[in-house]
């Protein structure tokens, strides 16, 4: 592999992590969506580079799908659904762990994912070495965002980050599973986001706020 390709991959890997961090460090929903959009564009670029390196044409389709679905359609849908919501639903004022601590925890999670990927026996391959820890980090930080935040919207964003990490993970490790499965996964995500948007919309009408602590009628006590 040419060293320029490798350095491009390294730089895009760090951009992906920075975009993930900006979701952790920001409070507003629009900021998260912007970070997610930029992340997805870089992700599409990385996918295209992997396609160029391996020479598998199906990966280019996956890259194009990423660009269209994740950086255009999903942010548009989410902005459209949430445009009527009041501003306090869209900002994370009171996470369980403060933003400052969250950033530190996320940094630790990045370290953890580098450690973990060294434990798992992979064939040494520069693409895997550079990008696999990045994908794991995205996955873990997404999980952390999901459990740490109180507003429903940030749970959606957490899910989106997890999903981006998962996509990168699959792409790096297997160079695209097969086109049918890849498209299936994309359709599932898109439908999932649409359904969660419908749910968000209904919640905005039926509940007083979109704080998850208010949404727990169903409990066993």
């Amino acid at each position, binding site marked *: 592999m040419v060293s320029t390709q490798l350095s491009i991959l390294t730089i895009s890997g760090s951009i992906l992590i920075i975009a993930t961090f900006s979701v952790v460090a920001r409070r507003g929903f629009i900021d998260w969506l912007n970070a997610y959009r930029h992340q997805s564009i870089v992700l599409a670029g990385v996918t295209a580079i992997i396609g160029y390196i391996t020479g598998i044409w199906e990966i280019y389709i996956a890259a194009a799908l990423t660009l269209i679905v994740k950086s255009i359609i999903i942010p548009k849908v989410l902005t459209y659904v949430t445009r009527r919501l009041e501003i306090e639903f869209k900002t994370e004022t009171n996470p369980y762990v403060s933003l400052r601590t969250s950033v530190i925890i996320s940094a630790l999670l990045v370290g953890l994912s580098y450690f973990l990927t060294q434990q*798992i*026996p*992979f*064939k040494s391959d520069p693409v895997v070495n550079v990008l696999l820890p990045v994908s794991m980090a995205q*996955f873990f930080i997404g*999980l952390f965002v*999901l459990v740490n935040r109180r507003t*429903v919207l940030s*749970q959606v964003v957490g*899910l989106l980050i*997890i*999903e981006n990490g*998962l996509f990168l*993970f*699959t792409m790096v*490790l*297997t160079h695209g*599973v*097969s086109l*049918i*499965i890849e498209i*299936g*996964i994309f*359709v*599932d995500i898109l*439908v*999932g986001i649409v*359904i*969660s948007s*419908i*749910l968000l919309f*209904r*919640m905005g009408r*039926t*509940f007083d706020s979109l704080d998850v602590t208010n*949404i*727990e*009628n*169903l409990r*066993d*006590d």
Partner: protein
Amino acid sequence: MDSVFSNLTILLLFLTPVASTGLVTLFRKKRIIGVITICSALLILVQVFVIVSRIISEKTITAFGNMFYIDSLSTIILLSISIVGFVSALYSKNYMGRQYDHGTVDDKHLVRYYQGFNVFLLTMLVIPTANSMGIMWVALEATTLVSVLLIMLYYKENAIEAAWKYLIIATVGLSFALIGTVFFYYANINAGSADDAMNWTSMVHNSKLFNPNLIKIAFIFILVGYGTKAGLAPMHTWLPDAHSEAPTPVSAVLSGVLLNCAFYVIIRFHIISSNAIGPEFSNQLLIIFAVISVGIAAASLYFQKDMKRMLAFSSVEHMGLISLGIGFGGLLGVYGALLQIINHAIAKPLMFFASGTISQKYETKAMSKIKGIIKIMPVTGVLFLIGGLALVGMPPFNIFLSEFFILSSGFQSGQFLATSLVILFLIVTFAVFLRHLIKMIFGNPVVPMKKDDMGKLAIIPMMILGALVLILGVFVPQQLQTLVQNASTIINHGGFA
């Protein structure tokens, strides 16, 4: 010639629910769409019976190259999907009709409900027939999405909350499962497989060459991921909400079949992992999750106030028992677990249907307000009692048989601690569940009500299931025995009968 026939079998099986969805969308008339769904579910049932008879004689069916692969194990799941699908379609007509009369749903909702129901059946049929583990994942994620849509059919706060929890938790769970699947795929590529590396048959074929450490990590991801969808504790938290807030026929399908579908995928990976690193590792994990599930279910059952939530926790318990049987291994344990899959798929929908009818009559799901069912609804009351006794494992009903097999295989394989713990939990469940049940069935109604069993179409599906519960408790038909035996051989002997 033969392969053309197999292709047609699969194609027809998938086309039936597709066509039915199309017809429902086309007609949009309240009377017709229910009947269309019943017909399509019946057609699916007939086709599955044809597949069963073919599987018994031919052992495997492959179609469209290697894309679809059916063996005895998948046939057991297909059988439970088609039986429960048919009775639920039958029950839907009465139940949704009443909801309509009551004003809970309107015409638009009904069309949406029947479309969703048919698509739900389709996505579930894909899981046991697919050969590729990737397609199984996609189909399972699709079942989540469709069932979320079905749960949020009602515009109630609780339904929205349940749908949200279910969507988030199941999606996160399945993302773990995808990581596990990709690990297995990676192991298969490294073992030298080429184009069909995602196929289960290819994974089983190459499994001896897999890297053991990778497989261990992968199986943990698989068990946590698909375990979330299969309702194994402690990842079960979405389950009681979703199952209690869904429309009752959907609850029956969710509880009776969808959990089995998710567990079926775990079994598939369990076979590969047993081939690659020996069965001990995955067996131990399955047993641990099983004991936790049965324990948590027993504890939660005690505190239940809501009838449908109680049934949902009982599903957690039964998934635990199935996992226990597979974990104990041996011919007896696996045989018991597979029989338990079918038995649970018959008894649980019976209970859900009965509870749906009861809650429509009493207009509440709170158990404290439901008294004297047997006086007001004699037939439903008796069937409710039969289903309840079956669920707690009372002889001579069907679940007793499979639980007996599972537990005795536990002693046989020397897992004394796990077995005795589970027996202890089962005794607690038995006492608690029966207490709830007896309080509801006997006694005098709080408010005097007219004696009424809520229509024939509500009773018939329950009668069918009640009869099956009784029959399977006394004797297991020869064909089913062969099927279950072949499937246990597949699990115990590394993938092929």
